[in-house]
């Protein structure tokens, strides 16, 4: 599974990355988590509010940090 966390480096973006890593770990799935900080790359996903979560190329969450439970469900 390809997971990308989009964010320019604000506090919310780092917390989204942390929750996502935890969710992946607890679910025990193998996934490649990448943090995308470059604004030009972020914009190619068409999001306007960071942080955003991309799973297998699809934007599933934008502009907020979801709970651990929600991310597990999304995975």
């Amino acid at each position: 599974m390809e997971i990308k966390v989009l964010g320019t480096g604000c506090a919310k973006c780092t917390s989204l990355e942390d929750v996502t890593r935890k969710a992946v770990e607890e679910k025990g799935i193998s996934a490649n988590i990448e943090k995308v900080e470059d604004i030009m790359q972020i914009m190619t996903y068409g999001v306007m509010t960071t942080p955003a979560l991309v799973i297998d190329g699809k934007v599933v969450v934008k502009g907020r940090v979801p709970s651990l439970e929600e991310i597990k469900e999304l995975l």
Partner: protein
Amino acid sequence: MEQQRKLKWMGAIIIILPSLLALYTHLQSLIDYFTYQILPLSSESHFGQAINFFLYDTIKIVILLFLISSLMGLVNAYFPVERLRVYLTTKKMYGLQYFFASFFGAITPFCSCSSIPLFIGFVQGGIPLGVTFAYLITSPLVNEVAVAMFLGLFGWKATLIYAGSGILLGMIGGYILGKFKLDRYLSDWVKQIQQNAHIEAGRWEGERRSFFDRLPAIIKDGWGIVQKVLLYIIIGIAIGATMHGYVPENFFTEYLSEDKWYAIPLAVILAVPLYANAAGIVPVIQVFVAKGVPLGTAIAFMMAVVGLSLPEATLLKKVMQWKLIGIFFGTITLFIILLGYLFNWII
């Protein structure tokens, strides 16, 4: 299970909201009881009065900020910025687009880290630069923290004036900047995006989660905003309370009074290098006003502090050339000064 959770949240709202409102309306007598009876401090002493002031203002503003942030979060959950973009690109607005962009900038929680993605997002959708500027000007000026602080320290009238003029400033500033054909001063990669701009109508999809699924996160975010600025609120109010006691009456009047024509430009220019958030600056502004500075001058100062900041300028460097940043900030500065004169003249 789903039903149970729904009931739990409904119950929580039914209990918490009225208790917060009751606490808010009876706050002064509760704080009086606490400071003068329980502690007990003398209601005659300066110290007792200062503590009373401090507790009252802090708690009042925390309640206001929590309610306003949650309300803004709620509006945003149902009308996110992506939806605004679809509106702005697909509907004929006859000039109203400046109002919508500016108004939306006011009701969204402001975070300087999201202004760049928003800017690009607007450009990507083919929204004119002027409309984008309208959003960009109002967004930092009118935000949940500024509104809560104004409401708590100046009352609703001054708050309406502040928010209204912030929106007006965005609209007029955006409109005028839009007339100048400034697109050539964007960064090269932004120009490329602009050339490939296309209207992605209907790409906005509403979230399908129910109200009660979304509410916990909205309330949690609202509280998160309070936590983030709580320290600044406390420091700001503490400074304000101290200044109240020690700065002599009419201290500022000599330099910043109404009959001195240079007072407003001076206040604005002094404010630019100051980088503070609304939480820290409003309590100080309140002292200024109490000690004889006209409200218009004070509002101009406040707008310059929160709206014109160097960190914001360096962020914008990614999408604009220096010349455009200069024009952008120059125009806002000019309009803030004009607004200050206007208020002092009206009030």
